[in-house]
């Protein structure tokens, strides 16, 4: 039986990569992802993980090396954060369009400037349209579980897409938490070997990363889009299989005391647990409040989201990223669009906060929820509210 122990989340995530028996890790260290790749480098150097660790000179090279590695059919992992994710930006599109099942942990970090090494979701939102499957995790256990699931999803021959596992920089990566690391044989049973259908092979040569003139580009992109959309049912299938094997259940939109709630707060990532405490506190004060948490960011879970909010009067959404000059937080904007044509939908209030590592306390979330309820009643002159800024 797997034992529960206290461990730093970055180390736990690296140990999960070891359990998947990854073949190649190509990564460049960047705060707050550093401990993940440091620990993986140690595991490889100590002979505990039989993998090639490629210490590249930049994140652009890290992702490029991952393309080559994944194209041979090797199980491939990398990790990055913030500016590193931006530096590999153009290669991310190539990974998804070439349908390479790379798994990447992203220790979410604010983008410069001003220079910040601390956490928020501006890096996530900048890579929204890269065609990767994107999953938010909330705590150390989820970081382990979703890293393992990510390989099975990515490598499933009905999917064959790269997967990002988003975990908040510092607020999650650097926490020591009690987690259960699964046993290696259980992971091996859950995660079959990677069987990429058309790998680079001298015996059966193929050409990858080809040129598409206007006559075929639209067809190529539509094939990719259909495939990403269809991946949702397989993601759900993998999570159901994971529950059967390990007893922990995951959903694309998670719920907390939301069934009968008139007001819902929506969060992503590690701030979700703090918001849950605020929901408890407001419930004690007699407010009809609940929470939904967005786990699956891409492909977007339209059905599950619509079902989750259909009985609520007010939906308050906290984004940890700004869309400068735009209509609100990026997640909120998408949710407004997803609900616009629904006959029955809640009023939506957009908050942006928790940027550049700024913490939001339980009292802060209570304030966001109550202020959100007031705005839903009275309206606001603003497109969105900024939380916690000093006037």
């Amino acid at each position, binding site marked *: 039986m797997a034992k529960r122990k206290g461990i730093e989340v970055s180390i736990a995530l690296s140990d999960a990569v070891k359990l998947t028996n990854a073949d190649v890790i190509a990564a460049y260290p960047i705060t707050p992802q550093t401990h993940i790749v440091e620990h993986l480098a140690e595991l490889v150097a100590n002979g505990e993980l039989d993998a090639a660790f490629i210490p590249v000179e930049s994140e652009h090279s890290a992702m490029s090396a991952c393309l080559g590695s994944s194209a041979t059919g090797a199980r491939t992992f990398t990790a990055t954060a913030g500016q590193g994710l931006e530096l590999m930006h153009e290669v991310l599109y190539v990974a998804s*369009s*070439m*349908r*390479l099942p790379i798994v990447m942990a992203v220790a979410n970090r604010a983008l410069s400037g001003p220079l910040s090494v601390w956490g928020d979701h501006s890096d996530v939102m900048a890579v929204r349209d890269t065609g990767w499957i994107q999953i938010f995790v909330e705590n150390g256990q989820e970081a382990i579980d979703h890293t393992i699931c990510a390989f099975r999803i990515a490598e499933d021959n009905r999917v*064959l897409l790269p997967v990002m596992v988003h975990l908040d920089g510092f607020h999650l990566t650097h926490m020591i938490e009690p987690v259960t690391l699964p046993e290696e044989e259980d992971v091996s049973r859950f995660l079959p070997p990677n069987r990429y*259908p*058309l790998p680079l092979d001298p015996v059966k*040569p*193929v*050409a*990858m*990363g*080809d040129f*598409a*003139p206007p*006559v*075929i580009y*639209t*067809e*190529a992109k*539509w*094939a990719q889009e*259909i495939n990403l959309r269809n991946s949702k049912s397989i993601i759900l299938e993998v999570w159901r299989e994971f529950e059967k094997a390990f007893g922990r259940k995951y959903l694309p939109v998670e719920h907390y005391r939301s069934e009968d709630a008139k007001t819902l707060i929506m969060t992503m990532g590690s701030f979700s647990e703090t918001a849950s405490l605020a929901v408890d506190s407001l419930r004690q004060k007699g407010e009809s409040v609940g929470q939904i948490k967005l786990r699956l960011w891409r492909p977007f879970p339209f059905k599950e989201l619509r079902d989750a909010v259909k009985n609520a009067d007010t939906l308050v959404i906290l984004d940890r990223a700004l869309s400068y000059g735009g209509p609100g937080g990026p997640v909120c904007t998408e949710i407004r669009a997803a609900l616009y044509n629904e006959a029955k939908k809640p009023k939506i209030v957009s908050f942006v906060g928790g940027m550049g590592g700024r913490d939001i306390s339980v009292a802060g979330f209570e304030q966001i929820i109550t202020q959100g309820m007031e705005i839903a009643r009275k309206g606001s002159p603003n497109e969105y509210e900024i939380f916690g800024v000093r006037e």
Partner: protein
Amino acid sequence: MPKKTEAEMTWKDIEVGCIVTEPGNAAQYKTGAWRSQRPTYTFSRCIKCGICQMYCPEGCITQNKEGFFEANLDYCKGCGICAKECPTRVINMVEEEE
């Protein structure tokens, strides 16, 4: 890759990740279509040395039945390197006209 031409292929016909499994299909493209100049020849001056063929970056120059070297205009980009390198000035580049 199916035998359909690109213009006939639907999104369902595309191999996973747009992988090309059949070698040599780039020959389907007539890549000389956007040439702005083309080579013309005065074969009476040609000594059949083959220098133009060696220098051609496109690899589109072959010997014809009489042994003279000539560019395949389906692939010639009109760069003029052959004309520049020809020691006996056989090749003259002229403007393509609509």
